[in-house]
């Protein structure tokens, strides 16, 4: 037996007490703070679900073309989205899509500035790195419970859980990308009297963009992999279909919904990658 040095029971109890305290005192405030996000998410979901299906496909193809400048590629993306609808998963797919866009958007908004700060301050970086490790490896149910206690079942806890799980790649790769910027290019911009803002937006971020895009790509992939878990706490969509399939032992339902998730993943992945690739080719030395 390992000797008892600290009482695990006491630690557990005090953590439980702390979460209870948070729930009692701050749940309302946090809920109110999350309302704008919820409103935006609901609006986005309504938009995607109510828009005619062909318009969504056309917009997707346009985005694909804008990112890659390849016609065959964007036609392929449109065809895959069409396939999603053809499998009878359009509505659920749009719900998942809106959740993903929201979660990815929040991840980027949080992740890129944190990544920039990490690249600038070594001390902040050394604090953040273990925190990112925890976020990526901690089983998501562990933080789902307190989040559900604070926000109740629904879309908000689903988004929070997704962001916690999905944000590390974009942070890491932003940090890495900025650190990898050619020192001489940066020095040149300093030598010409660029302020630190001019250096950041004129040199560091543009040159780190391929890496940042790779981070965003990874973030979307990880967000998608969270949709099944998120569906357990009340986010509907493709994940819910998978869950239903499991509960009712309907393998076909589960498999089709799973394929739907894969289709969305492939579309997101290829579009973001093709953008990063194009940047990289042009920027290669």
């Amino acid at each position, binding site marked *: 037996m390992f000797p008892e040095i600290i009482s695990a029971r006491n630690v557990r109890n005090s953590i439980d007490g702390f979460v209870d305290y948070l729930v009692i005192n701050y749940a309302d405030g946090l809920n109110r703070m999350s309302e704008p996000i919820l409103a935006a998410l609901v609006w986005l979901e309504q938009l995607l679900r109510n828009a005619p299906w062909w318009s969504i496909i056309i917009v997707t193809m346009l985005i694909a073309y804008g990112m890659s400048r390849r016609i065959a590629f964007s036609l392929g993306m449109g065809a895959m989205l069409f396939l999603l609808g053809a499998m009878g998963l359009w509505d659920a797919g749009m719900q998942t899509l809106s959740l993903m866009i929201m979660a990815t958007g929040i991840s980027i908004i949080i992740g890129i500035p944190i990544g920039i700060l990490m690249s600038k301050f070594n001390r902040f970086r050394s604090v953040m790195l273990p925190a990112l490790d925890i976020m990526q490896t901690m089983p998501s149910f562990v933080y789902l419970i307190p989040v559900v206690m604070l926000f109740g079942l629904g879309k908000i806890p689903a988004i929070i859980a997704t962001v916690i799980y999905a944000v590390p790649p974009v942070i890491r790769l932003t940090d890495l990308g900025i650190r990898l910027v050619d020192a001489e290019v940066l020095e*040149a911009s300093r*030598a*010409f009297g*660029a302020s630190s803002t001019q250096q950041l937006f004129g040199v560091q971020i543009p*040159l780190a*963009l391929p890496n940042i895009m790779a981070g965003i790509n990874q973030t979307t992939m990880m967000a998608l992999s969270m949709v099944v878990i998120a569906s357990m706490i009340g986010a509907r969509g493709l994940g819910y279909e998978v869950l239903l399939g499991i509960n009712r032992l309907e393998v076909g339902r589960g498999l089709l919904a799973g394929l739907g998730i894969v289709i969305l993943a492939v579309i997101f992945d290829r579009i973001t990658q093709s953008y990063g690739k194009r940047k990289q080719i042009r*920027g*290669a030395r």
Partner: protein
Amino acid sequence: MNKIEVKNIYKIFGKHPEKWLEAVKQGMSKEELLAKSKHTLGLKDISLNIEEGSIYVIMGLSGSGKSTLIRHFNRLIEPTAGQILVDGTDVTTLGKKELEKFRQKTMSMVFQRFGLLPHKTTLENAAYGLNIQGVSKEKAQETARYWLEQVGLAGFENQYPNQLSGGMQQRVGLARALATDAEILLMDEAFSALDPLIRREMQNQLLELQSRLNKTIVFITHDLDEALRLGNRIAILKDGELIQEGTPEDILLSPNNEYVEAFLHDVNRSKILNAGHAVNKTRLTLTMRTRPALALERMKQYDYQFAPVLDGNLFAGILKLDDAEQAVRSGLRDISSLVRDIVSVPASTGLDAVLTHMLQSNQPVAVTDENDQFLGMMSRTKVVELVSTDTPNNESPDEGKQPASDTPEAGQSDSGNTGDTASAETVPSTANPETVTAPEAEVDTNKTAEKPASEEPRKPAA
């Protein structure tokens, strides 16, 4: 006038440079500092004066601190101690905003690996400095276009850097630096990454631009040939210390120590040195009106086979010993009719050209200055000595100090100039009696006397 004055710059890399500054000032060596404190001595007591409108070359091998030094000028690296005055303003005291302004307006920089923005076109890159200054887009691009044209890149405005060759990329870097119209141009090993042909081309272009623009250029290189070619003055660094500073000729002809000498070893000296460096000051000059008997006597006294003859200050030709004897026998009044024409070259002729000439003919060669005035005779021994890198060159160019036993070089063994080397120190002081002039032409005496005398020799005419 000094554009940039560097005063006692010290740079120590490490966590607490101030703590070790005193010790370094007391003379602690780089190795000792590293062993005791894990601090690296970057620069030690560097002071330089850089004249306005000149190209100042700082050279040294990698690790000598030359790139560190140039980055002090625009404070990309902060000095540990010391001052840098640009137009009398101490750069080290500038605040953040002032420093940005200073970098925008006063100094621009060209980098070894170009430092171009890969995501911007050539035109946008050239306009970068102006964009930073907040110049309007049209105006910046117009200026950038002009400078791209000046460096020979018209038509490449919309290419991206990775579509250009190294030489072209560096031209973009140069255009970017010139576009800000800064008075000072810092060039950090700007041509080192280019292949030799392109490098030469860029050097020529830089010299050509400089002749029109008259910027103050600080040029870093590890290549002595490049330094000698471009520099009005050269400073040589080693391990963060200034080893020698001077004009290219100073460095080439009187290196301070073995380190500099080792540097000089691979230099193509014949391209830098010219005929003027290989002149032997004449111990004996004749004038057109010298009496043959006197000429003969003097030539025999010095054991010369011929002697240069002046007409006024202009070089007229040489008088050969045989001819002098002939003249005495036939009782000529003066030697003017016997003077033979020989080749004379201006002092600015490169030694490489002189060498070719020397190899083609055995005739003696006279050296004149730009006004055609006689300077002296070309010394074959000296030419060979200057061009050869093996000969220790601390023998000053003025004179060999050895007595009359200069062994002729193999290729010219027939010239037999044994015994012709005279010690020059004695000559100027006793120049008057040595200079043989016709007694009836006293006026000429002074003029000629000022001319140092010929030691070059009794080279038999071929």
